[in-house]
């Protein structure tokens, strides 16, 4: 009896092993999911995109699917997103972080982000002049540093504006 049950069990085990299931749709390795959020607005939330170009302190770089995992700090400048359908979107960011993960997800988190269409060239130039003025009048070390940052941001802003 015991042998029969043993045989039966091993048989059953085999049956179980042979049973096949539908696999989940394989995760497409060549897709890249982007989360792009500023403190003021969300641009992309886990949206599949083709390519993202980001300005960082270690140099500007483009990100394609299967990019090596990476951390970087955003520099004031323009982030360019190539959407899946071929549209290109340019968004100005002031500062923030970029995280590229192993599973091809990207988080671009910015303090302040605006599409460049929303920028006004003359207003940006005014800001740039103001920042230069601020730098020339800055006396203490801290004021100077702040003014330099303002100048850097406004310079990038002025360049980004259409």
């Amino acid at each position, binding site marked *: 009896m015991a042998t029969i049950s043993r045989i039966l069990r091993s048989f059953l085990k085999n049956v179980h092993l042979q049973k096949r299931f539908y696999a989940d749709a394989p995760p497409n390795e060549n897709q890249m999911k982007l*989360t792009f*959020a*500023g*403190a*003021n*607005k*969300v641009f992309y*939330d886990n949206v599949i995109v083709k390519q993202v170009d980001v300005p960082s*302190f*270690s140099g500007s770089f483009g990100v394609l699917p299967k990019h*090596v*995992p*990476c*951390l*970087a*700090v955003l520099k004031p400048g323009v982030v360019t997103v190539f959407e899946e359908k071929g549209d290109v979107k340019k968004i100005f960011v002031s*500062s*923030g*972080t970029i*995280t590229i*993960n*192993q*599973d091809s*997800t990207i*988080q671009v*988190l910015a*303090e*302040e982000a605006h599409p460049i269409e929303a920028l006004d060239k003359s207003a940006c130039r005014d800001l740039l002049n103001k920042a230069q003025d601020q730098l020339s009048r800055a006396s203490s070390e801290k004021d100077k540093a702040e003014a330099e940052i303002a100048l850097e941001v406004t310079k990038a802003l002025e360049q980004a504006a259409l």
Partner: protein
Amino acid sequence: MLCQGIKFLTLTAAQQQQTQQRGMATLKSISIRLKSVKNIQKITQSMKMVSAAKYNRAERDLKQAKPLGQGSKIFYEQAEVTPVEGDTNKLMVAVTSDRGLCGAVHTGISRNIRDTLLANASERENTKIVCIGEKSRAILQRLFAKNILFVATEVGRKPPTFNDAAKITIELMNSGYSFGSGKIIFNRFRSVVSYVIDELPLYSKQSVTSASKISLYDSLDNDVIQSYLEFSLASMLFYSMKEGACSEQSSRMTAMDNASKNAGEMIDSLTLTFNRTRQAVITRELIEIISGAAALE
């Protein structure tokens, strides 16, 4: 014995007089109370309106802030960052506000911290608390006055901004307190009627550099990690403050709604007593007049 009896008599007489006087006085005092309860109801009703408007805005803002907070958490999960062993210094950030009258939003946060700290004596020694908002300070100060690192006030009057979060981050960096691990404790908004206490983990630079999967990440230097951590701390604080503000407003809305309802009930019962007493007073006066007239006949 006789003396006592007389005393007793005068006492009852005095009592009677008092009740008679009170009969008149009650009418007055009831009407005063009625008026004050009506005023309270007006106040709670308008507070409800205000917080409903604020809640709408807070919820809209929260939707925009959510990816920012979730996004900054992902790296820690992906890289499997764990607190450094041996570093027992901890940090707890209590996200509340200055304003009360919003149910158990603030007490919940404070109680959570209090329970963790009271449960473990060594944690009580090594944990520092950052209070965002006066309310958590008021509660935690009684027990853990020496654990409080600093308090951020003027929270809750206006919706939180990224600048507020950045200020707290800067203050935290400048405080010179180095922590091995920490957490932000805040109310996560679920729906208009519910919120849950949630935590976001905080890690030190050392724990990030010694994380098990950190070697997968490319081009890391000290500066990048430091800036990255600072920014992600600020964005997590910002996100948790948004969640907190939204839960607070929604909870205030419910609390004020309940208060208005209760005030309405009180007004009903007071009106009833008022009318009854008024009726009683009129009846008594009539009796007095009639019996007076009858006595003259």
